[in-house]
């Protein structure tokens, strides 16, 4: 082997080509001797010649394999010839003698490689002979192979041994008695041990600078070693007992003793892959114990992963067969021992292994499953406590994430989560948030309804420590992490920059998290309104202890939940004819307080919530409360809405809401009038004239309010097709005043195009009132407006948009003529 390094690849290729042509030619000669002349001795001579090519030390394993394949075919031909020859020779005894003689004869070959290949070739034929001393022949071949100590040549020779005898081994082990099977097993194991030794030894061949090259070569050769185990796994007559008592201990002993990480990594994985699932489970203890003894460089984690993957698939495929989960304890024992033996064992790997065990545990439905899971959480905590570096905590994230794999996530709300929660608390805020998100996602995904306080407490326990957490821990943590420069001093410049960036992304993150909780709140529901109320109060309580951002983001959702509760209370009390006004008042008060919390940060949201609650309270006929909500709205409008565009928009919503306050108008018109006066006043105080104009003509509707008759169905008139709306409030004078006022404001606008547009809008409003028969809006008034508009167009030219609008309005007026003859009097030139 040492000479190999001095050979260039080109030279190697040349040597290979040369060997190939010799082998081919010698095989051809051999076949000719066998086919035509039955000159066996000459044929063996040729066989010996081509086998001599396998004595080379100059080829790499792949090239050597090329030669091997050719030679295997050549020897196969010889085997078939000898078998046929033996069969023609009907007398079994003489056939036996013939093979014995041949077996001895080829042992005169002076070189060991050709000699052993020929011995194996003939010995393997001999094995199929019933009269042969099979055991002796097998052991003899095995023993003599020891003469080849060169790793590559020895591996191929022994591979040839196992390949040649494979059929015999598999057939006999399945049909014969126990002793034969044992012999066969021993034979294979023995060959395996020798091959592994050679394979490991290859690492130490040649110069130490070629270490990498050796590793590559060894990887190319590993299948040869593994083939022994593959054949073992193919023996039918192997039962659990044999596997556990004879096969596995022997194999593992060799694997452990060789103390070579490449061998251990590969062979242990082979064992996991090739032996049946139930063997794996029953031998778990032995196998895991061996894993504790392997070389430091062996990737135990990977091996455990592939073992557990295998078991998981087994369970998934045979759910009914595999019910006993007691073997899980072996894994627990294993990880405990691993930790005891190697305190320094990487936390990452430790967690990966625990996570695999968790995964496996979770596919079982057994009752004690959660005990095991709990134990795993406990082990994680113990490992963490051993660790000196507290930053390691994040590595346990994967364990916490395991809840994702709960078959039934509802279980998470029930199990003893003491350890889980402890572990959770050890994490950084980032991880905690992530886990909380997982909890929420799983609840949403599985459509799990939280319907009692225990469940709610369980979930909020996690939120409190994460998303809702009050102290600005997150940003502090951040500073300690990155703000220190090389000399451990805080670098101010970079601090500011990154702070801004981070602030933004942190805000985004927080908002997303809060949104998640809002979503979650929608999954809190109990149809018993008392319980539901308690649940909501509980959430409120949790929120009140949470940080400010989360309050602001989440409170609206909670308010809507309260409103939903009120609606439910209302519908129940409608049935029972018994409105619990007191309780409802209390809830409305709660809502008001909640709105109070958020109004500074989110004034528009606060207005919307107030108005929604005004509508709700109006529908329950709680006019005091309705009035309060409007007052609250006005206060926010006055104090907190500063931008004029938003002022206008808010005002429009207020006006629209006021229009729907039917119960208030009916029962408390004085209070209502106060409100509408205020709203109209707001309109005239808007900054932009166009906004003033529009707000005022919209306010006109506050003095003339109809209610759709269908809503008044509870009244005594049995509506039939009576679609005439019931008029709740009508003050023609006020309406006209509003229209006039808005007209004046429009006219005072210097941009005539805007003025014209407003004129047309007022015309439209006027037509509406005309149709509904408001006397103050007369034909004369309408004609005057139309004239004003057409004159304005004449003065300013027809801007397309406004003129189109104008024409459509006129067209509408004309279209009304057949229905309402009064329209004939409107001049539409």
């Amino acid at each position: 082997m040492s000479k190999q390094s001095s050979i260039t690849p080109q030279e190697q290729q040349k040597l290979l080509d040369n060997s190939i042509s010799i082998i081919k030619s010698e095989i051809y000669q051999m076949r000719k001797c066998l086919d035509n002349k039955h000159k066996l001795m000459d044929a063996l001579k040729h066989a010996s010649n081509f086998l001599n090519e396998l004595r080379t030390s100059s080829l790499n394993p792949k090239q050597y394999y090329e030669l091997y394949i050719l030679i295997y075919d050549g020897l196969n031909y010889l085997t078939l010839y000898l078998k046929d020859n033996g069969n023609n020779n009907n007398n079994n005894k003489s056939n036996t003698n013939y093979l014995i003689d041949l077996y001895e004869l080829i042992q005169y070959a002076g070189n060991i490689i050709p000699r052993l290949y020929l011995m194996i070739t003939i010995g393997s034929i001999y094995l199929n002979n019933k009269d042969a001393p099979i055991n002796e022949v097998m052991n003899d071949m095995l023993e003599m192979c020891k003469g080849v100590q060169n790793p590559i040549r020895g591996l191929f020779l022994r591979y040839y041994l196992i390949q040649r005898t494979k059929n015999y081994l598999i057939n006999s082990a399945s049909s014969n008695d126990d002793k034969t099977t044992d012999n066969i097993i021993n034979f294979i194991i023995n060959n395996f041990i020798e091959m592994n030794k050679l394979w490991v030894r290859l690492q130490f061949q040649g110069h130490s600078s070629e270490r990498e090259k050796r590793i590559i070569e060894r990887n190319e050769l590993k299948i040869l070693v593994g083939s022994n185990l593959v054949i073992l796994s193919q023996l039918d007559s192997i039962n659990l007992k044999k596997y556990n008592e004879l096969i596995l201990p022997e194999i593992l002993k060799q694997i452990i003793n060789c103390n070579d990480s490449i061998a251990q990594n590969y062979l242990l994985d082979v064992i996991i892959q090739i032996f049946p699932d139930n063997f794996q489970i029953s031998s778990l203890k032995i196998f895991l114990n061996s894993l504790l003894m392997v070389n430091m460089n062996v990737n135990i984690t990977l091996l455990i992963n592939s073992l557990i993957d295998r078991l998981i698939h087994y369970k998934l495929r045979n759910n009914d067969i595999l019910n006993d989960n007691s073997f899980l304890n072996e894994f627990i024992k294993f990880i405990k021992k691993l930790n005891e033996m190697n305190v320094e064992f990487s936390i990452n790997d430790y967690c990966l292994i625990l996570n695999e065990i968790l995964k496996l545990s979770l596919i079982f439905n057994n009752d004690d499953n959660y005990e095991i899971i709990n134990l795993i959480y406990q082990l994680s905590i113990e490992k963490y406590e051993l660790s000196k570096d507290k930053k390691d905590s994040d590595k346990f994230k994967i364990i916490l994430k395991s809840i994702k794999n709960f078959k039934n996530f509802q279980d998470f709300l029930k199990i003893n989560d003491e350890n889980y929660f402890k572990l959770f608390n050890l994490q950084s805020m980032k991880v905690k948030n992530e886990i909380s998100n997982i909890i929420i996602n799983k609840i949403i995904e599985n459509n799990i309804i939280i319907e009692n306080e225990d469940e709610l407490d369980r979930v909020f326990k996690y939120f409190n420590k994460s998303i809702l957490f009050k102290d600005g821990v997150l940003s502090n943590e951040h500073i300690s992490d990155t703000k220190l420069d090389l000399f451990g001093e805080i670098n101010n410049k970079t601090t500011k920059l990154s702070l801004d960036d981070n602030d933004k992304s942190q805000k985004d993150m927080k908002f997303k998290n809060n949104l998640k909780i809002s979503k979650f709140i929608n999954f809190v529901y109990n149809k018993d309104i008392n319980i539901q109320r308690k649940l909501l109060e509980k959430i409120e309580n949790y929120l009140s202890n949470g940080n400010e951002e989360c309050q602001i983001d989440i409170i609206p959702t909670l308010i809507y939940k309260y409103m939903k509760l009120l609606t439910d209370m209302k519908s129940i009390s409608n049935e029972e004819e018994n409105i619990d006004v007191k309780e409802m008042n209390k809830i409305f008060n709660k809502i008001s307080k909640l709105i109070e919390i958020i109004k500074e940060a989110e004034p528009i949201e606060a207005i919307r919530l107030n108005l929604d609650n005004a509508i709700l309270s109006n529908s329950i006929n709680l006019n005091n409360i309705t009035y309060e909500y409007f007052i609250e709205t006005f206060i926010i409008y006055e104090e907190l809405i500063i931008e004029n565009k938003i002022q206008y928009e808010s005002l429009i919503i207020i006006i629209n809401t006021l229009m729907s306050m039917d119960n208030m108008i009916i029962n408390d018109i004085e209070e209502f009038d106060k409100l509408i006066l205020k709203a109209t006043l707001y309109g005239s105080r808007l900054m932009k004239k166009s906004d003033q104009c529009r707000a005022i003509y919209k306010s006109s509707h506050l003095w003339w309010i109809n209610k759709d008759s269908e809503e008044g169905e509870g009244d005594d008139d049995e509506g039939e097709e009576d679609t005439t709306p019931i008029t709740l409030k009508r003050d023609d004078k006020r309406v006209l005043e509003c229209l006039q006022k808005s007209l004046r404001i429009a006219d005072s606008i210097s941009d005539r195009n805007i003025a014209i547009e407003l004129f047309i809008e007022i015309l439209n409003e006027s037509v509406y009132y005309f149709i509904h028969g408001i006397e103050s809006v007369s034909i004369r008034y309408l004609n005057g407006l139309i004239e004003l508009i057409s004159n304005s167009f004449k003065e300013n030219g027809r801007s397309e948009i406004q003129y189109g609008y104008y024409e459509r309005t006129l067209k509408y007026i004309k279209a009304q003529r057949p229905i309402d003859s009064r329209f004939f009097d409107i001049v539409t030139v």
Partner: protein
Amino acid sequence: MSFFFKSPLDIEINFDGEDSREIIEVNSTKGRKERLPVYKDGETVKGTLIVRTRDNKKVEHNGVRVQLLGTIETHHEGNINNDDFLSFAQELAAPGTLQKSINYPFEFRNVEKMYESYRGMNVRLRYYLKVTVSMKSSDIIKEREIWVYQYSNLNNLLAESDSKTTQIPVDKNQSNDKDNNNNNNNNNNKSQSPPSSAISTVKMDVGIENCLHIEFEYSKNKYPLKGVIVGRIYFLLVRLKIKHMELSLIRRETVGSGTNQSSESKTVVRFEIMDGAPVKGETIPIRLFLGGFDLVPTYRDVNKKFSTRTFLSLVLIDEDARRYFKQSEIILYREEEK
């Protein structure tokens, strides 16, 4: 062997039952194969002599004689030495006249043939029949060689044996001269002399200090020519980069005695028993069938003229082609086949 271009007589020597007799093929001096009938010690040599005259002419003679001779022919420093150790004669015809063909039966009863036939490098031991027809001018002579096997069984071998399995340290024969001085003095001989005379396993424990330490074991020190050498080599310490290991059988032929003695060795068999370097603790099996090789029995002293001995040599060859070897004598004997 006729000295005349055309001998007036044609002599043919035939042995009784020749067709069924065992025949041995040996290489003649001229490089051809000779086929010779095989006789044992004490076996009667019996046959018929046919003497024909050419063209039915009358030939006068002074008598016909047949001899059975045993000769050791040694080559020593260019001189050929013949030494008859056996000579029997029989007169077949008194002086007279020969015409046509005449048959003369002959018989040498229970001849003791002390030695085995041998053709070596510098020695030949041969048995032959010599027919002499005495003539007025010069005698007409005809010879025919027979081959003699000397069988022995283990028991008489043991009785006679005062075997000295010699203790030789591991001899190191370096082909690389530059390293010559390195290990020469380190030869560490721990040979254990085997119990003398008994047939026993041969166990040896040899090595070079801090470099190599092996133990080897052969099942026996005496083998029949068709036997098999079985043994094992146990590596206790391996610091050499061994490339392979072989066994050789070396025949040593010693001619003469005293100051005139000279020996010549010939490697008869070379047999690779290990490919590659073993590690400490490895055991390498040995099995060498002897029957197929051209071996001769061990003779310590053949009529004070020569001896033939065979040595089993274990040779280790390292990656720099240096050879390390250890020889021990094995006793070969011809065992009568059942």
